[in-house]
C-alpha cells in the first residue's frame, strides 16, 4: 500500500522531471518552511519542497562550513549533484540564519535560477507583521508571474486553495488516524507518506493519499504501549524512524515543522493579510517563529498528557532555533513528570547505533514512569 510513497522518496528528482515533461509546468523549488505553496499552484506551476535528506556530503564542503546545519548542507549537496536541474526558480524563507545565508549561496552558485525571498517577520507588533507579510506575498507573486509566464488570477487561486485544502485535510486525517490508532502503520511508513508530499504534484499526491487514508481509517484500533511524541524540525534522516519501529516505540504524534506545525493551521485561505498571518503563525508553536502568544512547553505538556506519551526531541545538530528551546522544554516536562529525552542527528549519518541505545533506554524508563 505504501510502495508508491517509498518510490517517490527514492526517485524524487526523476519523478519531478517526469512530471515536468508530462505537464509542461514550471517547477518552483521551495525551501523550508512557511511559504504558501498554494500561490505556486495557482500560477500553474508545481512546488517541490526541499527539507534536507540523508546523503553523504562532499561538494558542498567547498562552499559551506561544517557548522552549518546539515539540512542546509544536504540541500546544497543535492543542488550541486544536479538533483535540482529541473527547478525553474527557488523560493526561500528566512526562518533562521542558516537558511538566510543558504539563499545567498544559491544566488551565487546558480545565477541562472531566480531566487525569490519571502521574509518571515520577527517582530513584536502583530499589525505590522500582517502588513509585512502582505507586502512579501505580493512581491513574491509578481516575481513568480515573471518566472512562470502566467498571470495570478482569482480563479486560479480559488482552484489552488481548494486543492490544497483537500490535501491538508487528508494529511490531518492521517495524523488523526495515527493519534487514535498508532498501531495502524509504522513510523517509517507514516513519515514516508508525509515526505512524498514534498515532491509530488498536489493533485497527484492527493489522489494517492485518499485511498490510503480510507483504508487506514477503517482498520481496527489496537491499543499500544510505549507511546511517544517526537518534537523538532523534520524527521530526517528518515531511515532513523525505522529504529523506533524496531525498538517498539510508537510515535503517536509530532511537533515538527514539517509535520504538525505545518498542517495544524490548515491550508491558505486567501492572500489577504489576515489569511497569510494565519498561514504562517496560526499553527502550533514553532521554534523558528517569534510568537510570544504561544508557549511550546505547555503545548507539549498537554499533548504528552492527552496521549499518555513521552517526548523525544529530535534535534538536528547546529539547529539553533531548536537548541535554544530544548533546555527549558526538557526541564519543564521533567518537572511535570513527563519522560523526555533528546538526541542529535546529522542528516548524512548512516549509522544509528548510539541513538538506538538511547531510545532503548528511554523505552525502559518510560515503562517505569508511565
Amino acid at each position, binding site marked *: 500500500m505504501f510502495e508508491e510513497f517509498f518510490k517517490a522518496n527514492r526517485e524524487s528528482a526523476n519523478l519531478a522531471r517526469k512530471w515536468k515533461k508530462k505537464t509542461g509546468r514550471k517547477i518552483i523549488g521551495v525551501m523550508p518552511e512557511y511559504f504558501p505553496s498554494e500561490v505556486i499552484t495557482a500560477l500553474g506551476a508545481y512546488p517541490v519542497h526541499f527539507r534536507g535528506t540523508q546523503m553523504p556530503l562532499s561538494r558542498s564542503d*567547498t*562552499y*559551506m*562550513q561544517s*557548522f*552549518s546545519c546539515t539540512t542546509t548542507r544536504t540541500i546544497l549537496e543535492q543542488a550541486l549533484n544536479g538533483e535540482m536541474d529541473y527547478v525553474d526558480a527557488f523560493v526561500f524563507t*528566512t*526562518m*533562521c*540564519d*542558516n537558511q*538566510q*545565508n*543558504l*539563499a*545567498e*549561496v544559491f*544566488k*551565487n*552558485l546558480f545565477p541562472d535560477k531566480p*531566487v525569490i*525571498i519571502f*521574509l518571515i*517577520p*520577527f*517582530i*513584536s*507588533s502583530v499589525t*505590522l507583521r500582517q*502588513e*509585512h507579510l502582505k*507586502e512579501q506575498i505580493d512581491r513574491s507573486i509578481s516575481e513568480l508571474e515573471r518566472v512562470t509566464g502566467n498571470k495570478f488570477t482569482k480563479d486560479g487561486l480559488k482552484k489552488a486553495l481548494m486543492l490544497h485544502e483537500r490535501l491538508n485535510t487528508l494529511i490531518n486525517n492521517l495524523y488523526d488516524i495515527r493519534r487514535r490508532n498508532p498501531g495502524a502503520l509504522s513510523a517509517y511508513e507514516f513519515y514516508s507518506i508525509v515526505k512524498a508530499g514534498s515532491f509530488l504534484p498536489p493533485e497527484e499526491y492527493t489522489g494517492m493519499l485518499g485511498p490510503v487514508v480510507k483504508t487506514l481509517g477503517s482498520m481496527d484500533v489496537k491499543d499500544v504501549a510505549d507511546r511517544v511524541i517526537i518534537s523538532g524540525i523534520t524527521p530526517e534522516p528518515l531511515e532513523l524512524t525505522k529504529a523506533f519501529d524496531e525498538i517498539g516505540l510508537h510515535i503517536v504524534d509530532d511537533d515538527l515543522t514539517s509535520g504538525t506545525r505545518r498542517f495544524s493551521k490548515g491550508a491558505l485561505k486567501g492572500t489577504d493579510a489576515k489569511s497569510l498571518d494565519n498561514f504562517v503563525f496560526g499553527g502550533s508553536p514553532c*521554534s523558528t517563529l*517569534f510568537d*510570544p502568544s504561544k508557549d511550546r512547553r505547555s503545548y507539549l505538556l498537554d499533548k504528552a498528557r492527552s496521549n499518555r506519551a513521552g517526548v523525544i526531541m529530535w*534535534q538536528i*545538530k*547546529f539547529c*539553533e*532555533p531548536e*537548541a*535554544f*528551546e*530544548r*533546555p*527549558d522544554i*526538557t*526541564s519543564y516536562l521533567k518537572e511535570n513528570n513527563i519522560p523526555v529525552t533528546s538526541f*542529535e542527528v546529522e542528516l548524512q549519518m548512516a549509522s544509528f547505533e548510539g541513538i538506538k541505545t538511547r531510545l532503548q533506554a528511554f523505552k525502559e524508563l518510560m515503562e517505569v514512569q508511565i
Partner: protein
Amino acid sequence: MTKFRVAETMKEIMAAYYLEAKNAAYNNTPVAWITSGGPVEFLYAMGVIPVYPENYAPMCSITRMSKDLMEVSEAAGYSQDICSYARTDIGADMTQGGPILGLPKPDMLIVGTNICHTVVKWFDVHARKYNVPLFIIDMPYLHDDMTKDAINYVVKQFEAFKGFLSGVLKKPFNEDKFMETLFLAAQVSDLWEKVLAMGKKKPSPINSFDTFIHLAPIVTLRGTQKAVDYYTRFYDELVELSNQGFGSVPDEKIRLLWDNLPIWYKIKYLSEFFAKHSAALVVSTYTNSWAAMQGDIDTDHALEELARAYLSPYINRGFKYRTDYLVKLVEEFSLDGLVFHSDRSCKPYSIGQYIVKEEVTKRTGRPGLIIEADMNDPRVFSDAQFETRAEAFLESFDR
C-alpha cells in the same frame, strides 16, 4: 596592541558606565538589555540604561572566564553548537559570576534582528526567565539593495517602539531628548569612521586589534556626550601619532583586512603574531559596522536615516554587497590580503565566506586566509594549526 594615551580614559568611562548600570536599581533607573544592533538612541532618550550582553560576553572572554561560564550553561543543556556569546551570557546569568558579578537585572529586553536570528532565541530565554517585556524590531536582512519598503517597515517599528517605551515607563516619549541623542550618536559615528579611516595611512597608526578594544564606548555609549569626547580625543591622538610617522605595527610590510568578529581570548596573541610578521590588520568589516550613521541629521527624516543606518551593517547584507564592499576596501586601504575568521558561533557572518573570499581574490588578485575559530570559545582554537596556516599565508607575500 598599541598603548594609546586615551586608553586610561576608556577604562574610566567604561567602569563608570558599569557602575551606574549595577546601581540602577538603587537609583530607580530602568535597565534594558539590548542587542549590539539595537536602536539604543530611544533608550537614552527615555533615561533607560542600555546593557549589552554582547559586550559583556567578550569581557568574560578577555578575562578568561568565558570557558567556565559556558560550561555552566552547557551543563544546563545549552548545546555547544549555539553562539558562544549566548552560552557565556546565560552561564553568567545563571551563576551571577563573571566580571562585575553578572549584569544588573533587566526591566525590559530589546532585540534588533539586523545581526542575526540567534538573538531572538537568546533573548527569549531571558524573557521566559525574568518575565519582562521583550520588544523585537525586525530589521530584515538585505538580500539585494536597500529598499524603500525595508526602510518604511523599520520606521513604523521605531514609532511602535516609542509607544512601547512610553507604555512600559509610563511617561510620554521624550522627542527633544531623542533628537539630541540622535545628533550625538551621529557625531560619534562620524568620529568613529574617522578613527577607522586612519588605517589608510602608511604606516597605519592603528590596527584592528586596537579598534576591537576601543569599540566598547561606541557600542554602549553611542548617543552620549561622553562618547563624543572620547573619540574626539582618540582621533586627535591618532592624527598626532600619524604625523610623527608612527606605525602600530613596527616595520609594517603587509597590510591586511580582518573579517568577522574578533577572537577575543586570543587578541594579544594574534596581535603579537601578526606584528612579528610585520603584518598590520588595518581595517575590519566588524568595527566598520558602527560607522553607518554619519553627518548632519535631517530632522524631518530622522527616523528614515536611522532605519537606513540600522539596516546597513555588513552582516545584514547579501554576498554581492559583501564582495563589492571588500573590493572597495582593498582599494581604499591598499590591502595586500584578507584574513577571514570563520567563526563557528556566528553563522550569518561566516556562511558564505568561502564564496566571498574566492570572488574578492578573483577581482583584486589579493589572497585570503581562512582561520577556523570561535570568538568566545577558547576550546576550539588551536595555536599550532593557526600558526602553520598563517605563516604559510604570510610567507607568500614576498617582501
